[in-house]
């Protein structure tokens, strides 16, 4: 069967940070030699095309939205075609008004001049990255970047910070142009599987994304997988004066209401949605950073935290991007969303910390901690009554178990009868998750963490991301990762938390919403609908 294409949509600044890492992961894993056995069909996310000059291009099938001023050095045209000033419309007096060209950082300068060969070099991304284009490796199709001209990135006086501002933007020229771009991508596809929509659910982009999702569900009969995302940190998170505290408080409330509206509306228009945040709470503040053993990341750096989410997305999507074409997004959605439970949670275990001289069987047998952490805000993933889809990548079959002659004690472990990594993980989840259904997907290839992926790994890891037994020093080049989608009764708890927190907000004090014509009555209606949605997770079900 032909390629089942996916169109990816990104709305908002943090979503674009995640996206930049995600597309870097794709493009840096391309094999131009034809030697490496690839499992992923890149045509699902990418499209082949041609520039006006006839050069062949291969670009992400992607549309993204961000504010004016957020792109810095990347031209709106995506960087593949130069704008070219030549203009044969002669006009007597032309006044040229040029903005100063922002300097390119070392990394961007290097890829401009040398192409991908510079990837071994060390860069100071932690300092250099001021926006997501600062570490973006791919170049984008002309129609990919859609800039909201009405608001300026980083402008605090007039910001696009409420849901309804985004909604009204969609009704103007922006929505017209954006939906036409969607149509043009879809027209090119022979056998599309669906849309993936990643968006910031805390500011005005939430409304923009939801308008778009509603449009998608009206216009196309395709699956819509949405990731509402809460950034790991906000600049106002550490107030020092009372005034700053009040401001931050107000902003927290606005962000929370946007999140509420997003989730409630997603429950109506998305096929499946999975909220993401590297902070454990998400609201009213992102909260403590989720812990990943052997990774030291700074949640205040979007460049860091967004790499974790991108790694999860890349791993989770392996299942429906496989060359065999067996599974599609609609299968995933159908598996997870029984009983109207359109919201699921996600987890990430990175790296999967096997010791380099340890067998998988021993690791799974002895580890006392869960092998993954939740990356869904205010959500503790339960251990029983689950539906879950787990993807494990980069655990070589040779790590499975000791050969018979050397097996010794291993033979006493029931898992020893497992013949491959898949069976062993299946057994592991069977043993650990009571009354649950688990589907495991195994990918041979690990996650490759090439520059500009953050170097936030502990130096106890070896080149392959496994825990070293000696003290030699190696740079991590790849690592084994586990990621999962999980659904079950436990999510009612998260919805309950959201409901409780949003019910406490004195809505009438949030003038910005009132100004946009969103009133108390509608707000309480939204809360009621959320409570109804929660009911889908309440009934006990038996397998």
């Amino acid at each position, binding site marked *: 069967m032909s390629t089942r294409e996916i169109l990816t949509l990104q709305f908002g600044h943090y979503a674009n940070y995640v996206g930049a890492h995600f597309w870097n992961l794709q493009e840096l894993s391309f094999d131009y030699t034809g030697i490496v056995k690839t499992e992923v069909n890149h045509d699902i996310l990418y499209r082949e095309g041609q520039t*006006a000059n006839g050069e062949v291009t291969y670009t992400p099938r992607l549309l993204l939205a961000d504010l004016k001023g957020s792109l810095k050095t990347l031209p*709106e045209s995506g960087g593949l075609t130069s704008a070219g000033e030549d*203009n044969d*419309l002669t006009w007597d007096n032309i006044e040229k*008004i040029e*903005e100063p060209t922002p300097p390119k950082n070392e990394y961007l300068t290097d890829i401009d001049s040398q192409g991908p060969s510079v990837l071994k070099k060390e860069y100071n991304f932690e300092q250099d990255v001021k926006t997501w284009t600062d570490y973006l490796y791919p170049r984008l199709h002309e129609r990919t970047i859609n800039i909201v001209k009405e608001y300026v990135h980083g402008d605090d006086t007039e910001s696009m910070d409420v849901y309804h501002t985004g909604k009204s933007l969609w009704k103007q020229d922006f929505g017209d142009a954006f939906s036409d771009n969607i149509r043009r991508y879809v027209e090119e596809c022979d056998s*599309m599987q669906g849309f993936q929509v990643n968006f910031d659910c805390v500011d005005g982009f939430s409304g923009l994304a939801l308008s778009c999702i509603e449009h998608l569900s009206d216009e196309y009969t395709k699956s819509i997988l949405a990731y509402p995302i809460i950034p790991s940190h906000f600049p106002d998170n550490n107030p020092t004066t009372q005034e700053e505290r009040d401001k931050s408080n107000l902003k927290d409330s606005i962000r929370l209401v946007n999140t509420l509206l997003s989730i409630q509306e997603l429950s109506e228009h998305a096929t499946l949605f999975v909220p993401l945040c590297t902070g454990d709470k998400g609201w009213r503040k992102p909260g403590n950073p989720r812990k990943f053993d052997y990774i030291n990341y700074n949640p205040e750096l979007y460049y860091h935290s967004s790499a974790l989410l991108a790694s999860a997305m890349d791993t989770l999507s392996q299942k429906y991007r496989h060359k065999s074409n067996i599974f599609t997004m609609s299968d995933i959605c159908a598996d997870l969303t029984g009983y109207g439970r359109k919201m699921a949670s996600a987890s990430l275990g990175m790296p999967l910390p096997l010791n380099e001289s340890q067998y998988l069987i021993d690791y799974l047998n002895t580890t006392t901690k869960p092998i993954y952490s939740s990356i869904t805000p205010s959500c503790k993933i339960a251990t029983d009554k689950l539906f879950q889809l787990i993807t494990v990548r980069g655990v070589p079959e040779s790590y499975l178990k000791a050969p018979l002659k050397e097996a010794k004690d291993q033979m006493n472990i029931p898992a020893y009868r497992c013949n491959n990594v898949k069976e062993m993980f299946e057994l592991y989840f069977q043993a650990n998750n009571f009354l649950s259904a688990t*589907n495991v997907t195994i990918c041979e290839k690990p996650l490759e963490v090439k520059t500009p992926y953050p170097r936030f790994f502990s130096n106890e890891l070896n080149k392959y991301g496994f825990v070293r037994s000696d003290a030699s020093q190696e740079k991590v080049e790849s690592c084994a990762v586990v990621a999962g989608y999980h659904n079950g009764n436990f999510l009612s708890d998260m919805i309950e938390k959201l409901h409780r927190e949003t019910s406490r907000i004195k809505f009438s004090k949030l003038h910005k919403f009132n100004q946009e014509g969103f009133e108390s009555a509608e707000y309480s209606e939204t809360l009621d609908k959320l409570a109804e949605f929660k009911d889908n997770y309440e009934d006990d079900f038996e397998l």
Partner: protein
Amino acid sequence: MAAISLLNPKAELARASQALAVNISAAKGIQDVMRTNLGPKGTMKMLVSGAGDIKITKDGNVLLHEMQIQHPTASLIARASTAQDDATGDGTTSTVLLIGELLKQADIYISEGLHPRILTEGFDIARGKALEILESIKIPIEVKRSDLLDVARTSLKTKVHASLAEVLTEACVDAVLTIRTPDKPADLHMVEIMEMQHKTATETALVKGVVMDHGARHPDMPKRVENAYILTCNISLEYEKTEVNSGFFYKSAEDREKLIAAERDFIDQRVKAIVELKKKLCDGTDKNFVVINQKGIDPLSLDAFAKEGIIGLRRAKRRNMERLALACGGVAMNSVDGLSEECLGYAGLVYEHILGEEKFTFVENCKNPQSVTILIKGPNKHTLAQIKDAVRDGLRAINNAIEDKCVIPGAGAFEIKANTEILKFKDTVKGKARLGIQAYAEALLIIPKTLAINSGYDAQDTIVKLQEESRLSPDPIGLDLSTGEAIKPTDLGIIDNYVVKKQIINSCSVIASNLLLVDEIMRAGMSSLKG
């Protein structure tokens, strides 16, 4: 996009202790940026962003959108002029200039101690008079090609080079005349503006039909057919996998095959119904068949069409469904039930044009096209955008004229005439309000003055010349930008929209008055604080 840092609000605030001073300097600032734009000899602005994005424009409204306007007063003025554009599509530069000038004139009197409220009263009286004068110089028109050409040309020549303006003028007028039904303004949505990026060509053409930005997705489909039935529809011809391949519950391969076959059959039936109709109507004749679908058409369905020589287009724009029905006749079908010859439209010619990765499909030679396409070609995005903006303005100028049933002479004629008449009228008014009337009359001259300056003539000399000539002539007198002499604008075909001028007169005095009275309110507030 390129930011023109207008004013730093904080610095301005520090310097000017009074709100009025702030307002006036803001108005001057924005006026300074825009004044060089006015008229066909104004400067074109090329805005280059830090990353190299280019925007070329001479249009006040486009420029206002691209600028980062931080100052609240400036943004109020900007909003007024954007509103002007939304309402009429033109006159934004004039609006900004006039508001600025009204404030400048007011400043002179206020610094002499006159109360702003008295000035605004004068403004309002003068506004009424200006509207009367506007009525008196109206030139009634018929909806005739020749009458409309002048107004379109005048507008377009202020946006693109004269030679291109000439081509666009004809295209715009013919577009509107083609789709229009008598006694009604045209629905400009039925004029599609289609852009084609092409390295070498800059040309524009009116296509009496529909041009779509996509083409057939099958290599064996004909690239060009004549005498074609057009089926527009919104019917899925794409196999959607409703059967789910669960990770938990496996189905046997056999079961799955069966389900797929059943689903597939559903789609095949639809394709067959269309093919049947084609066979019935076209086989054995020289007629052809084209399917334009708003939904998807998958490769197998495309195959079936291609075998029959049918051109099939998928994912057509929703609005094009309506346009196609208007251009070709026929009705958009939502199902294959009741499919018959009556549902179909007709086009004399359908062909595909490929440019790089872009495909275009032309549906032309329609019998009674009520929807047309203006096709613009240009070497790059920013040129296309510039032409597109100009075409939009041209179309609206034509439609305004049709709606108004009249036009007015341009080239500053109204302003010269109004200045003279309002000054005369002022002498009949008693009290201090006269000063406001005087200020208003003076402010109007900013338009002919700026037109003169932008063409390299001395502002004062020009005004004197025009005023003298105006006194002698019964007809309105304007400025010939190529000679600097007085002329009758109608002789040169320099024609403006009536409604645009009317809106300028109304909104400028209101906004200027608000800005002046804001100051009054502020002062009241401050003195009460002090006391």
